[in-house]
């Protein structure tokens, strides 16, 4: 049995704001009965202030899907549409005191329904999920959604993606594609949290190299079953060792180049990477 928090249980057993608003100003519908969860969110919006005066939901799904939907309605009531859009799936999960990681997709569904409803209100046609390139056939998940959820939640492994989107949780055939998408996001995307630094002391340089390798490089490699280890940092020379799937990988030259490029970009042009 899942380890649900008391708040999840409370919102599941006594959900707030259930049902449908008559003549709603906005409707957001996501999910499908085939995939096992679906949410229909209806909103009443004050036209003058753009404030959500009422929100109701109908959910087909498990306890955490029902609790997440109910939590969402509580979170958005009284907020302006712009304020509501600031609410992330993590906020929904946090409001409930957390969700089991395998159930995070329930909170993502809440966030999606909110976006769909607000788009509907603004008259923006919702980008129907099926329109993107479907990566996971089992759960009809597009590349776009995988990228979005990965970036928003800093997800680095295929398991994370499965927990947050269900993609990869069925036959598993799409897993290698998800891996490729993750690799693409985390090796090419510029790290958000690190800013380029100038004139580093030796100690600062070592610390920065370590940080970039730990935060930006290793997770992507690990998601692929590989890994590297820093053996030594000698002036501008970074000596690493390949581990796991990276050992003897035919693509290791490419991997080393991309590590070197990343370090050059963020630490200094003079950095070289060597394999032990």
């Amino acid at each position, binding site marked *: 049995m899942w380890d649900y928090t008391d708040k999840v249980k409370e919102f599941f*057993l006594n959900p707030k704001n259930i049902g449908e608003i008559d003549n709603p100003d906005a409707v957001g519908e996501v999910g499908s*009965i085939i995939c*096992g969860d679906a949410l229909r969110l209806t909103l009443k919006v004050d036209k003058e202030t753009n404030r959500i005066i009422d929100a109701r939901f109908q*959910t*087909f*799904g*498990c306890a955490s899907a029902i609790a997440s939907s109910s939590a969402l309605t509580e979170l958005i009531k009284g907020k302006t549409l712009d304020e509501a859009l600031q609410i992330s799936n993590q906020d929904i999960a946090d409001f409930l005191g957390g969700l089991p990681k395998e159930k995070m997709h329930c909170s993502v569904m809440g966030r999606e329904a909110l976006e769909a409803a607000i788009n509907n209100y603004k008259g923006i046609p919702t980008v129907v999920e099926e329109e993107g390139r479907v990566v996971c056939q089992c*759960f009809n998940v597009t590349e776009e959604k995988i990228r979005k959820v990965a970036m928003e939640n800093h997800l680095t492994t295929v398991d994370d993606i499965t927990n947050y989107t*269900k993609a990869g*949780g069925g036959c598993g055939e799409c897993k290698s594609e998800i891996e490729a998408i993750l690799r693409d996001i985390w090796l090419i995307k510029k790290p958000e949290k690190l800013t380029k630094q100038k004139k580093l002391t030796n100690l600062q340089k070592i610390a920065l190299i370590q940080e970039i390798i730990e935060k930006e490089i290793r997770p992507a490699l690990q998601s692929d079953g590989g890994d590297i280890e820093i053996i030594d940092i000698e002036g501008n020379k970074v000596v690493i060792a390949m581990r796991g799937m990276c050992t003897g990988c035919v693509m290791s030259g490419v991997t080393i180049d991309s590590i070197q490029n990343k370090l050059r970009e963020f630490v200094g042009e003079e950095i070289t990477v060597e394999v032990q």
Partner: protein
Amino acid sequence: MNTIYLDNNATTKVAPEVIEEMIPYLSIFYGNPSSMHTFGGQLLKKIEEAREKVALLIGADPEEIIFTSGGTESDNTAIFSAAELYPTKKHIITTRVEHPAVRNFCKHLARRGYRITFLPVNNQGQLNIDDLLKAIDDDTLLVSVMFANNEVGNIFPIQEIGEILRERHILFHTDAVQAVGKIPIDLKKLPVDMLSLSGHKLHAPKGIGVLYIRKGTRFFPYIRGGHQEKGRRAGTENVPSIIGLGKACELAIQNINIEYNYISKLRDKLETSLIKLCPDVRINGDPQNRLPNTTNLSFEYIEGEAILLRMNEYGICASSGSACTSGSLEPSHVLRAMGVPFTAIHGSIRFSLSRYNTEEEIDKVIEILPGIVNDLRLLSPFGRDRLIRKH
């Protein structure tokens, strides 16, 4: 709050008589049966007595019984043994609705170069014998078909399959974990070479099971080490549990017919009442040909985990084939193999009864569940009308 336990295909309560029988072997007689001294050595006799009781329940010879750690080990051992002994044959036939203990072991062999045929079932969960006949070829080493399905209770035509295989000299294993103790089984008449059973499905403890191997069937041990079980399964015997299983089998022999009637009557009452009280419910499986204790119902438009958790508030225990109850995201492979529509799989609930259930308990479920179903349906965006509109 009293627990109403309707999840006996998952596990059963250990019978009080079984516990009583076991206690001395957990406390006073703790010896090792392999020891030279009487304190341990005398336990061998008790193990043999238990073996006789198990054999009696399934119409076997005591020497055809090997004690294992449970159903999974028995299933794995049977398939492993066949594969080891006939290494030139590389084809195994099984079904799409097997327990993971068979299914995943076969998948493992598939990665080792074996060809596995997973026989389909129809929408009532029954096999088509023609499919089996078509699948058999010169390379076929083993057929493994469960006796009764754990999720819907379907009973498979083991006699008929066994006869076909005997003629063709193909090994036949059946996972009878759900059947033993619930329906009469007589291996003297049943052409089966290997059969698995598990203690905790028939009111013995967890962690004890049996692999039956018909005399004359070649066997290759899976667990190796000491000489226990005549070298067929190494490891110090789980004496208290073996004795407990013996007692559980003795109780099953005494009660099997009485229970069949008693339990199936309760099950039928539960099923017909729920169907009457809740609209849009379907029975999954073959109502004519199933275990007396099992019913699998789909409540359309709502999801199984939600139903289970609401029932849990009243102390009612059942299980669901919905994906949300397990770590995996895939709903029950059994219901999918049967072609149950997704709309119904997600809302499937399995009730499995035992002799310890009472009519009052069933009445309580009948009183409470329709309200829960109604409540959750009010919460659901799908109703009959909307679904029709959408498709």
